């Protein structure tokens, strides 16, 4: 098994009267185990020069197993702090749920359920006896705020 760690350090000396210092390290493991994740897309770079919403990561193009412990890293490598990439979950041709904006220099790391829809288009939905509203495949979508060419880096860890 592989050992992959992700450490975050959140620091500020002046956001409050007392300094903020959050440090946390996780080992990327398969779901429900202490076995290290062994599969990754590798680090990818994509140039985007359009404000059209597109799929950045398409479940069907990966081997990600749904409802496990996959993690997604995305970074907007631009230095323009007034321009952003809007990251969502869903399908670019549908109505994704937006997570948030990555302005130039911002990064994010989050778990990914990567659920595909089932026959009725509502995988794990209330109608299926579940609790979620997955009306579309949970692809990772991206929409730039304008057509300025921007390089986005991303990487998926999965089983």
């Amino acid at each position, binding site marked *: 098994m*592989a*050992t*992959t*760690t*992700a*450490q*975050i*350090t*959140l*620091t*500020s*000396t*002046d*956001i*409050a009267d007392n300094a*903020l210092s*959050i440090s*946390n390290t*996780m*080992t990327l*493991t398969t*779901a*429900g185990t202490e076995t*290290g*994740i062994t599969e*990754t897309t*590798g680090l990818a770079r994509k140039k985007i020069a359009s404000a059209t919403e597109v799929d950045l990561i398409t479940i069907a193009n990966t081997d990600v197993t749904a*409802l*496990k*412990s*996959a*993690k997604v*890293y995305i970074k907007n490598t631009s230095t323009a*702090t*007034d321009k*952003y990439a*809007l990251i969502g*979950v*869903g399908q670019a041709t549908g109505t994704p*749920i*937006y*997570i*948030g*904006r990555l*302005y130039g*220099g*911002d*990064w*994010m*790391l*989050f*778990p*990914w*359920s990567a659920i595909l829809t089932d026959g009725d288009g509502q995988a*794990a939905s209330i109608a299926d006896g579940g*609790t*979620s*509203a*997955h009306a579309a495949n*949970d692809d990772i979508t991206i929409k730039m705020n304008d057509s300025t060419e921007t390089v986005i880096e991303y990487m998926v860890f999965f089983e």
Partner: protein
Amino acid sequence: MATTTATLTLTSTDLLTDSLSLSATSTLYKAGTTTGLDSIQYEKLEVAAGTQYDMVDATSGGANKANKVYVANKHTDATKYVEIYIAALQIGRLYAGDWMLIPLEAAAATQDVSVKAITSAQVIEFALIHEGKTLAAS
């Protein structure tokens, strides 16, 4: 203005043939500016099992900002996890020891960020770093 930085270090010596060593640092600015986010909410919470609880009310922090949400599952049993939701959509699972950092769009009042502990109560740490929020009137 405040200066807050978020640094990620991703490493592995055996995931790939060559070592993985990725580092990223961002300064947390207000949307579209170089002015630092200057407000924070930082909590440690026990989440009861089976019910979806809001961590962030989408209306309180303002929509379409550059606010950031940090969540860590502090449980130690590797089989336990919490589900993270935006609105009714399950984004992913945070197993014991996992953490996440995301920007927060809160595009609609329904797009709260919520958490549900599966099979047992679990303790999480949660931080919202933001540019000001509206307190609910009593």
